[in-house]
């Protein structure tokens, strides 16, 4: 099995630690991982802003980079959801469809494909997990509080395999953090207020770290935490599952 590693643009540029942890974790679990060097972005920033018609270049490049792999894995629910729902290429529709079927968000790849039952990781801290909306409601990574349906959580089940970790409960289990792509700047006031409230829920319950499957939500919350001078850190879930931060 060869997995094509898709590292979204902003993770590549600003959070290489999360990408390295994803790579190391997959390798630790015996997966042959390849990172195609010519990858850029999934195209979501344009599409969610109403400019899906400008994503042709990104779509073509994505298909060129990833069509040949058995699976495509990315440490981002949001970008995966975009590829799953919106990638299209009129010149090669079968390839576009196969890419959208093969792509997995990291934690769902670990639980659904690799069927991981244990992890050699230790992280003795109080951790709050942020349920990113696109991963949760879009990719069904965990149950949604609005629905009358049994509870499950793919990222939660993986975090519970980590030795010493203490997952905190939140007042609002799956409220949006307010990042929302270009929403974070176009609707700055509401976006920041949502982020402040989301962070406050974690802080109130004693989080030392806030984690999640989407670096974009975490980046937004990190910006707010740092502005507040908080000592609470954000970490992508791959970094915790890989045994802690900065372990290249």
């Amino acid at each position, binding site marked *: 099995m060869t997995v094509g590693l898709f590292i979204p643009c902003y993770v*590549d540029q600003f959070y*290489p630690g999360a990408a390295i942890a994803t790579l190391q974790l997959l390798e630790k679990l015996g997966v042959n991982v390849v*990172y195609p060097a010519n990858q850029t*972005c999934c195209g979501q*920033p344009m599409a969610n802003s109403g400019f899906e018609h400008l994503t042709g270049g990104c779509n073509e490049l994505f298909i060129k980079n990833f069509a040949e792999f058995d699976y495509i894995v990315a440490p981002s629910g949001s970008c995966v959801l975009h590829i799953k729902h919106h990638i299209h290429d009129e010149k090669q529709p079968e390839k576009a469809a196969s890419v959208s079927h093969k792509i997995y968000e990291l934690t769902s790849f670990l639980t659904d494909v690799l069927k991981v039952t244990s992890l050699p990781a230790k992280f003795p801290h109080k951790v709050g997990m942020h349920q990113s909306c696109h991963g949760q*409601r879009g990719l069904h990574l965990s149950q*949604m509080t609005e629905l009358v349906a049994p509870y499950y959580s793919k990222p939660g089940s993986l975090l519970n395999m980590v030795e010493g970790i203490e997952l905190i409960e939140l007042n609002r289990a799956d409220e949006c953090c307010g990042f929302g792509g270009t929403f974070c700047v176009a*609707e*700055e006031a*509401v976006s920041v207020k949502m982020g402040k409230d989301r962070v406050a829920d974690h802080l109130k319950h004693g989080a030392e770290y806030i984690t999640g499957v989407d670096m974009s939500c975490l980046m937004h919350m990190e910006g707010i935490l740092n502005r507040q001078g908080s000592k609470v850190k954000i970490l992508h879930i791959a970094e915790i599952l890989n045994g802690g931060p900065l372990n290249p």
Partner: protein
Amino acid sequence: MSQNITTHTDKKLPLQGAGGADHAALADIFNKDEDRVNWHDETLWWIRAKRDLSVHKIPEWEALRDTASAIKNNVLSNLNSYLQQFEANAQANGIVIHWAADGAEHNAIVHSLIKKHNVTRMVKSKSMLTEELHLNEYLAENGIDVIDSDLGERIVQLAKEPPSHIVLPCIHKKKEEIGELFHQFLGTPAGNADPQFLTETARHHLRETFLSRKVALTGVNFAIAETGEFVVCTNEGNADMGAHLSDIHIASMGIEKIIPERKHLGVFLRLLTRSATGQPITTYSSHFSKPRDGQEMHIIIVDNGRTVQLGREDFRNSLKCIRCGACMNTCPVYRRSGGHSYHNAISGPIGAILAPNLDMEKYADLPFASTLCGSCSNVCPVKIDIHDQLYKWRQVIVQNGYAPTAKKLSMQAMATTLASPFAYHMAGKAGRLVMKYAPFALNNKLNPWYKQRDMPKPPDESFGEWYKKNRKAP
């Protein structure tokens, strides 16, 4: 009391935003008072939590939603025949049916009915359709005095504001502000904000209204094709009070309010109030099937853009809406921006997919007032794909040329850069260097990210650069 109250000019403030301010700008103003935002958010979240408790008591909740959605699918596919069936049955019951293509026609019909009876006053029970059609303003201009009889509606009417929520029209007002309004208009003592006292005062004030109005207008929650009757749901019984005491009862309904058979009503009544407020059922679900002796009953069936929306394949589902307001209560953006920021009669996520159908240019901002978190679609009792429609509206709005030029240019530049690995790597490196060595270029007030958030700390190398050094290139 309150016989001589003179608030009847009824000239509501124009909806905010009509002058050009968009959702972001109006939300920015709302957010200047953070305590108020907190209060608004917590109040609506409390209702969302009540809704959760209430729906979790029904194990078949998701099946009920599926059923309701399927019934509405059938209705939307056979709207013409159900409407004709309804018309024939209602007429057989002695109800007069009117058809209105738009607000102007609807309002003219209402006015002519009032004029015919030679009165100048009308009592109205909550009808968001008449808000959509600006009936109150129209009647006021024609010298007709309208009193909204729903308590929340009455409060915003006194404040000369449009409702900020379709079910909880004055949810944006604190009880102290309501006390002040009542002091000003209903003569209550200054500083009294006791909800019990204020409600009692309003009840007395409205009772006078019911007793003295000859014409009553109500909305329609459900119109049943099979029987030609209609159902109005209220918690205060105000629709009944108005309709039962009037000589003429006018009911205004959108064409989408039809359900095929009486047996379908049970599905919707179970869903409606649990979704809206967490109540098992509305206090009053009043069936009106024919006028009582000596009374006239009229139904005005209104299109006002609905058939256009029906013809838009991606958006037709929005016509399933039963106006419960659950999407507003759950929407994290609505809770923190307030209903008026949507500058449309129907606010929140559902309003943001209905409004652009009415005026794409004026409401071009609304589909962007969302993080696409999807909570709205999950609470929707009739399973409208609200957040997917928001995404689709964004595409339609841009395709129709309603995107600001600056945004268009930046998106084009971004698309070009991201389509080229070389340009992407150069831009990424340049960006990180600027952040590292010239942070003032970004850490300033021109950058909306930086205003209340720190920028991410740029790493020395990107993952791509790290990979090249540490792993063999494929």
